């Protein structure tokens, strides 16, 4: 049974791989037939060669690293604030009464729309980028942390009480772990949104990072680098999201069924 499942999973992966290869092959072939000018839409191989001939690998790595550190800090700040505010508003009724309406009022504003305001407040430098990235993480995390807290099964809290736990100990030993599955979902969504904000922030104003890389390439008319960069951004997003997913499944998946 298990080996069967494994082999069918392997088959699926193989089919998926064939699909990806087929897509690239078609793209490559169409490009060579000249239906679409290669100046406008280069083939994958051309995009890669164009990038690697103009840009050393270390420079590409530098852009990836710059973007990753940026999104990491923004995510860390926004996510931690989201956890603190969300948990507090779910645990203490009065915090919820005060903060929920504020959050619900500001949540419909897409984080992107904060970019001009961030620039007014913090200038064109790094802080305004970190700010909008952190907003991307904050809203999903604060919402899921709050939801997780208010949906903790009250019987678990009562069980802890019958074992003599009170106050903070119930919060940290019972309510927080019980709300982790909800929180993890918010964290994953938050990472995705942070990443989206990162690209936007780097498009607007930056001198390094993957968003800058493609925006700069546009100014120079290097379409190969633009396409390479877009795929690179997608890959980095996919890989980091996958890594977070694996960590969540390892830690929470062993006791919780998603």
């Amino acid at each position: 049974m298990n080996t069967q499942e494994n082999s069918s999973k392997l088959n699926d992966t193989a089919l998926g791989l064939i699909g990806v290869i087929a897509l690239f092959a078609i793209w490559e072939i169409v490009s060579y037939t000249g239906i679409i000018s290669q100046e406008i839409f280069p083939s994958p191989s051309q995009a890669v060669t164009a990038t690697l001939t103009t840009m050393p690998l270390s420079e590409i790595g530098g852009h990836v690293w710059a973007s990753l550190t940026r999104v990491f800090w923004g995510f860390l700040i926004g996510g931690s604030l989201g956890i603190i505010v969300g948990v507090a508003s779910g645990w203490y009724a009065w915090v919820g009464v005060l903060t929920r309406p504020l959050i619900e009022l500001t949540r419909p504003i897409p984080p992107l729309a904060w970019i001009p305001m961030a620039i007014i407040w913090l200038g064109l430098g790094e802080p305004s980028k970190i700010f909008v990235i952190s907003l991307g993480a904050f809203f999903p995390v604060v919402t899921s942390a709050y939801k997780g807290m208010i949906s903790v099964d009250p019987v678990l809290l009562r069980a802890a009480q019958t074992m003599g736990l009170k106050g903070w100990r119930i919060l940290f030993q019972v309510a927080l772990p019980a709300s982790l599955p909800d929180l993890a979902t918010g964290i994953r969504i938050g990472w995705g949104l942070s990443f989206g904000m990162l690209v936007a922030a780097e498009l607007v104003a930056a001198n390094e990072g993957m968003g800058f890389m493609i925006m700069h390439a546009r100014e120079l008319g290097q379409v190969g680098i633009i396409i390479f960069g877009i795929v690179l951004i997608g890959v980095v997003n996919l890989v980091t999201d996958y890594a977070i997913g694996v960590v969540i499944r390892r830690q929470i998946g062993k006791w919780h069924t998603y």
Partner: protein
Amino acid sequence: MSKGLVRAKGGIVENIDHKLNSKPENMQKVSHNSVKISVENVSKIYQVADAEDVPVLKDVNIDIRNNEFVSLVGRSGCGKTTLLNILAGLVPPSSGIVRIDGTTVTGPGDGKGMVFQQHALFPWLTTIENVAFGCKSKGMRKADRTEIAMDLVKLVGLDGYQNHYPRELSGGMQQRVAIARALALDPEILLMDEPFGALDEMTRLEMQDELLRIWEVRKKTVVFVTHSLTEALVLSDRIFLMGRNPGGIRREFSVPFSRPRHRSSVEFLEMYEDIWAGL
């Protein structure tokens, strides 16, 4: 002790001082003489916004003796779970007092273990961690609490499952863990809120026998809430029948049979019928 043997004559015995034939003389004395839990004039009224107050319990008076196994039986809405929560100290009574060994109950914990209907195990902890939870919160050293927990895991028959998470256990096994967890702080009182209510019939019967076996090993005063009269008859020394509107104790029965009890013996069924007829 062979199963299926009923050593006492059946029938309704409403005399609370009735002697339990099967128990050794000295043990009976203990259970007769000392009152463990006394419930005095307890009432509970729930206040609902935009509606009239709902009286859930009215003037409940019971005494439960040391190491006695008592059941609260009734339909849903008779306040049996509320009464149990009041005994546990989870819910304060609107009026009246609950005393344990003469001391007024003011809060949960403190020698009162509880088992809930939906096991209420912490899903992020393994079997052994769940059982050791109470000891850990009391600051007990890891080696000590693991030893205590492991003994209990063995007692409830889950040796080999100590590192499993709750979701990996069957319903019956989950309830075994819940019982072990409630016993870990070695409480003198065990409060059980329809602990087998969510189990299938076969498992339920099995768990009733298990509970009695565990109770024989670790003598406790048990207050057991159930809506099944059969279950109460199999388990308890005394049964309190509860009614609704307002919730309260309607009648009280002593169960004269020795344990283990056979669920389909004539005497057992007769008593079952008699109690129903008396309602």
